[in-house]
């Protein structure tokens, strides 16, 4: 039972790819989120409009559609650019893994920008004014005052987002990345045991989301230390 028709290792390998996907997307998601939040709070109207329309667009379009668009469309775009540069017909293949990472970072980044925007607005205005009065430049204020506190205000939101991210990586199986769902589909097909394989896949995801929840809860507690409960 536990070796799953001799495919237990493959499922574990799939689990490793899922973890890799999550951890690769995470820094890009945070970066896009910070950039998006700064754009939304910018004093320039154009930047604000770009930031807002980015979120509105991503919020309304299914993740699966974004993944498919980047996987199929991205290849053509890169190919055209490569042909422009080299001047001859070239064939480029973007690995499915990286197009999946790009799609998920784009989607989760939009939601992260909302989280960071709210977090930035939770920082008391008096602190910013005090920093300005001390003669800090906007960059110094960002690095010394905003960034350290952003973490604490954004953690509950990021907790949610990371849960969604773990579940969304399953969608990348559609373009053939060999993560848990893809491995389960292969196993289910060849061994004619879909129930067993999909059950194992679900339990693996459940384990990942549970671990992520526990880690984030711990981080939230840690970030809140030294803050008076009221």
């Amino acid at each position, binding site marked *: 039972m536990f070796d799953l028709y001799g495919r237990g290792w493959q499922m574990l390998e799939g689990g490793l790819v899922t973890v890799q996907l999550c951890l690769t997307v995470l820094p890009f998601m945070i970066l896009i989120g910070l950039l998006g939040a700064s754009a939304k709070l910018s004093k320039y109207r154009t930047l604000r409009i770009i930031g807002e329309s980015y979120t509105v667009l991503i919020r309304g379009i*299914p993740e699966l559609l974004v993944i498919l668009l980047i996987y199929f*469309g991205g290849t053509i775009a890169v190919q055209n650019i490569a042909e422009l540069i080299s001047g001859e017909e070239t064939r480029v293949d973007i690995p499915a893994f990286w197009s999946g990472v790009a799609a998920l970072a784009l989607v989760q980044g939009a939601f992260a920008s909302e989280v960071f925007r709210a977090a930035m607005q939770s920082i008391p205005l008096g602190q910013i004014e005090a920093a300005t009065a001390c003669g800090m430049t906007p960059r110094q204020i960002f690095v010394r005052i905003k960034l350290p506190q952003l973490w604490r205000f954004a953690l509950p939101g990021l907790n949610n987002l990371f849960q*969604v991210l773990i579940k969304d990586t399953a969608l990348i199986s559609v373009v053939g990345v060999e993560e848990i769902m893809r491995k389960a589909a292969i196993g*289910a097909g060849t061994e004619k045991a879909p129930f067993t394989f999909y059950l194992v896949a679900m339990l693996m995801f459940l384990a990942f989301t549970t671990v992520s929840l526990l880690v984030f809860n711990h981080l939230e507690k840690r970030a809140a230390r030294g803050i008076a409960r009221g």
Partner: protein
Amino acid sequence: MFEDLLYVLGKYDSWLWNGFLLTLQLLVIAVFFGTLLAIPLAVARSSKKVWVQAFPFAFIYFFRGTPLIAQLFMMYYGVGQLVANIDGIQDHWTWTYLRDPYWYCLLTFILNTAAYIAEIMRGGIQNVPSGEVEAARACGMTPFTTYRRIIFPRMWQMIWPAYTNDVIFTLKATSLASTVTMMELTGAARKIVARTALPYEAFISAGVIYLIIVYFLTFGFKGIERYLRRSERRKDANKIVVTSPAGP
């Protein structure tokens, strides 16, 4: 570029239109039955008795902790195979329905949506000010009447923004039906791409249709929100909002 777009829209407009109708159909049925199922789940979940809480807790935890695509494959391929293995089922008149992915998709979406909505409702029920519930009891209302006249109306007021969000998440979730060969909006776009090799035109057309649906949903739900909060407009006090949990 534009010729390609017009070509896709002109030649495959009926696919996109039928996909649009199927997407709407899946969304409306999933949200309607999901909400119906979520009410008893949420009530049981906010009970203080452990043995009443246990089942809804496990149900919500399981459906919120696993990817929708895994639930869908489990239902369509896993449960589907168990059904197909029943003796003589393939000659039975129900077989036409039992092998149709449509019913498996609907069932999965309903259960999944129910779990998410139940969690939102639990937050709403628990945030109803306890003074109001005690006052209702003091007036001699039975628990059932208290729920009907006090707790549910209050809950809907509070959860409406989160509920709106969840309906939009369900709309996006229906795109997964395309992975089990359903021809809803995403499925139609994928088939157009397979035919024409024009990914931008097809996927962006589908994306724009999704955005239009979201726009009208948001617009309509805002109107209902204003109606639900009609009593607060004069006082504009006691606004309690439950924040939305993460989507599927």
